[in-house]
Every structure is written in C-alpha cells, then in structure tokens.
C-alpha cells in the first residue's frame, strides 16, 4: 500500500497537500542485503534510521494535517525498513518498497494528483543513501541499487529531474501545484571511483518539458552541502529529520499578524534559517559537521501553523554574578503581568534556564536591599523567540 493516506474524495475540488515520502534503510544489493551482492558497493552498507525517519515525517503529516496551509489530500509512503526498524514499528511493513519501478509509478501518480489546482501544495521527503556526480548534484539511491542491470546509477534518480518534472508545463501540467517543498535527507559526497567514468547516468523518473514559465515557490532543503555527508543516529533518526520536525513543531516559528492577534507559523524562509542551525548543532553535539543548504527559495509562504506560541528555552544571566544575592528577577509579559512562576532569589543555578511561550517580554531586576554597587534594571520589552534565547541582565551602575 503506497497511498498511505487519501482524502481526495472528501476534498473534492478543494486544493490539498500531496505528500511523497520515501525512506530506504534496507538496500537489497549492498552488503548485508537480501539480494545478489552489487558489483561495487562503493563502501556503502545497510542503514538503520532512514526508513524510520521517513515514517516519522509521515506521522507528523498525519498528526498536523489540520494545521497545514491546505488540507492534507494524499500521502504516498515508500519504505524499505531494516529488520530492526520493522520489528520496532511493524506499521512500516504496510507500505510498499522503494525500488525504481515503484518510485516511478508512485511519483507519476503523485504528480497527477498535484496537477489539478495551482493552489495545491506538494511535499517531497527522501531519506536514504545519496551520492553526487558533479557539483550541486544530488542523486538518490533506491532500494534496488546495485542490482547489476544497466549502469552503476541505473537504480538511482536525480533530484533535479524530479524537481524539473514537477514544474508547470503549458502542454501537460498547467495547473500543477505552485507551492512545492523538497527535503533531501541523504549524503552528497562523490566517490572517487565515479571519476573513472565519463558520465554516470541516473534513471529518469520522467521527461521534463522545456516550455513554460516556472513560477513555483519550490525550495529544496538538502540535508547537507555538496560534497559532504549527512548523518543519522544508528537505530534512531537522521539528524536532518530530527531537526526538521523540531523546526516544524515550533523551533522555526515566527508570529504573523492575523486580525490583531499573533498567529505562529513556520514558513519556507524561517525553516531555511533555523533548520541549518538546528542540524549544525545536532551534528556538533556528536563531534560531526553537517550543514543544511536550501535551493530555490522564492516568495515566502507558510508551511505549518501552530496552535499556540512555541516554547522558548530562555537562559538568564546576571551581570555581575556577585549581585545574585540581592537581585530579584521578574519576567513580565506584553501586558505587564508576571509571566509564569516567580523566579528564585538568588537565581540558582546561574545562568538560570526557564521555558516560556514565545512572545514579547520585559525582564526586570530589583536590588533588594539596595546596594551601592548595583542598580535596579527596569528592562525593556524585547522579543523572546524560539528555539532559544539568552538574556543578560546588567545591574552595574
């Protein structure tokens, strides 16, 4: 079952979001796989987190379908989970595999669904092995990679072909969705043995029509920069998918004015900015380096709306720390009312961490009893936005 979610009948002519989610951990022809060994495995083996990462993205789409810019219409789910992933989450077994023929078939159906209304939105996510042949290239290896048929990259597809094939074309797809999101969660490193060949051709998912104006907003978020690897936690999730879901759930949110009220949302641009920082931070925690890059950012638009302001991890630091014993810190919201629980005096530990909903806050410090060496700090209203914020409260004269 590749069409894991289908609300087309309920939506009727209403534009919807059509998602294509693929995750490949089990490669049939790489070492440890179930098929004939590949003629050359290019030092790649089985993965343990890619299918789970895709499944998490699928679950997120299902859970947040009421908060997307358009209603969720379809999700096509192509998974090749490892045995351990399948054991941990048997539901992954219900999806179809992710071979070249399956991907082609489902991609064409996905494009057809997305071609009925320009107001529709598409969502593409792929997690699995990836390579590159030239600068800027991103090649996705499919479940049957290395089956010995055709060339080396016969069972691989190029993201450019997928992206270009989704462009509006006056003859075939004039009404294709103009808002498209692509998430490519794979390495982009070039194997030195690729350089022995004149041109390694990937398989096309479809032919690309040249005519027409490409007026899409269609950013592609790559898990890594050209020539570099992308990482996953063995038996867990990819760093990119962890950061992506974190960002979508609020870490990349910003307020939008809607009839005088703040409505928190994640947009193409905020995601590009915060996703990069989040992934770099996750990788840094593991003594690794990984940088997200985004292509094709056009006009900004929302991806996800939040129910409430997201929580922000606030770090408070008193300057100088010697004043801790005398300083009573207070956080006031935009109406001047205390926000959350009163802070302890002295702040312990220091710096002090607190979690509060994103918004505009004033942080004050009152020196009690008065000390000649320190002064009260009345503070001023400042934005405290996700995912983290650090504020230094100065009580020096």
């Amino acid at each position, binding site marked *: 079952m590749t069409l894991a979610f289908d609300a087309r009948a309920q939506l009727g002519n209403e534009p919807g979001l059509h998602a294509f989610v693929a995750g490949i951990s089990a490669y049939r022809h790489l070492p440890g796989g179930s098929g004939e060994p590949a003629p050359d495995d*290019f*030092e*790649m*083996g089985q*993965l*343990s*987190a*890619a299918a789970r990462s895709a499944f998490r993205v699928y679950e997120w789409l299902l859970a947040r379908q009421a908060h997307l810019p358009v209603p969720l219409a379809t999700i096509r789910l192509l998974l090749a989970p490892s045995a351990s992933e399948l054991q941990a989450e048997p539901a992954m077994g219900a999806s179809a595999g992710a071979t070249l023929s399956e991907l082609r078939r489902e991609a064409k159906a996905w494009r057809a669904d997305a071609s009925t209304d320009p107001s529709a939105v598409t969502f593409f996510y792929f*997690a*699995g*092995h*990836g*390579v590159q042949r030239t600068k800027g290239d991103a090649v996705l290896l499919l479940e049957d990679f290395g089956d010995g048929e055709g060339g080396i990259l016969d069972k691989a597809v190029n993201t450019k072909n997928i992206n270009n094939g989704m462009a509006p074309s006056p003859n075939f797809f004039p009404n294709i969705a103009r808002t498209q999101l692509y998430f490519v*969660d*794979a*390495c*982009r*490193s070039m*194997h*030195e043995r690729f350089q022995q060949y004149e041109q390694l051709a990937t398989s096309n998912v479809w032919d690309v029509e040249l005519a027409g104006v490409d007026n899409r907003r269609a950013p592609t978020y790559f*898990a890594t920069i050209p020539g*570099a*690897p*992308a*990482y*996953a*936690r*063995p038996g867990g999730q*990819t*760093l990119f998918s962890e950061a992506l879901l974190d960002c979508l759930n609020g870490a990349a949110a910003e307020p939008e004015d809607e009839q005088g009220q703040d409505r928190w949302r994640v947009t193409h641009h905020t995601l590009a900015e915060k996703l990069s920082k989040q992934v770099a931070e996750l*990788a840094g925690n*593991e*003594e*690794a*380096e*990984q940088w997200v890059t985004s292509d094709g950012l056009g006009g900004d638009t929302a991806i996800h709306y939040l129910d409430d302001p997201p929580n922000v991890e606030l770090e408070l630091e008193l300057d100088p720390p010697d004043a801790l014993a005398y300083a009573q810190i207070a956080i006031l919201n935009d109406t001047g009312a205390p926000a959350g629980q009163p802070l302890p005096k002295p702040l312990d530990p220091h710096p002090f961490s607190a979690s509060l909903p994103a918004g505009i806050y004033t942080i004050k410090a009152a020196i009690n009893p008065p000390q000649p060496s320190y002064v009260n700090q009345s503070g001023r209203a400042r934005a405290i936005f996700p995912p983290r914020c650090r504020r230094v409260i100065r009580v020096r004269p």
Partner: protein
Amino acid sequence: MAANQQAGAGGDSTTRLSGWALLAAFVVLVAFAVFVVYMIRHVSTDEVKWTRLGWLFASVEAIAFGAAGALFGTSIQRARAENAEAEARKNADAAAKGRALASTLVADAPGSPGGAARLEALGSEQRSGEAAVAARHASVARDLFPELRQ
C-alpha cells in the same frame, strides 16, 4: 582428605598434603612396605596361613594405594596446575599486548569525515589507500574486542 590451600606465584592456588595427613600417608606406605617384606619371607608357609595373609594383604593394599594416590596424585596435579599457570601467564601477557595493539588501531582509525564516529553516514563511507586499510584494521580490532566499540 586433609589438605590446605597454598597461594601460587600468580595468586592461583594448588592442593598439597600437609601435617597429619602427610604423616599418615607416609606411615601407611612404610607399614605396607614392611608387610610386603613380611609376605615375601613367608612365601613358603602352609596354604591356610598364606591364604589368610593374602586376605589381610588385600585389605592393607587398598589403604596403601589410597595413601600413595593421595601423596603422588597431588604432586602430579600440582605440577599440572603450575604448568597451566605458567601457560595462562603467557597467554594473559599476549592478550594484554593484543588488546593494546587493538586499542591503538582503533584510536588511529580515521573517523568519518567531520569526525562523526558515533553516527551513520547516508552515503559512501569511502576511504582510500592507507585510510581504508586503517579503517579495516580498526574494524577487525573492534570485532575481536567488542569493548573497544565504545
């Protein structure tokens, strides 16, 4: 059987007869030797007496063999234990050197690009030349000494 534990050089122990047990075994063996001499001297005695002596000898023989077994058996066992200890010391030394070598191989193994040793790359973990050999050696070392995986 009375016996005590005596620590060996490597901290291991061997079993050795001592004290009253040793004396008793020695006395039994001397008595048995005397009895054998006595029997030899009475080879030509009458049939009834020889049969009775033979019956007694069979009883004493069992006790004497027990004493001899206790006395010489522990000596033989001790020799074997000492040999095993020496062998174990040699093997432990070799194992320690092997573990040290494996630790060095793992420590010198090239990490993933960017240094992500604990992460899984979503693509080729390509290495060339010496790095590939070093990575393979480190992999073998980790297989042989799983504790080095940490």
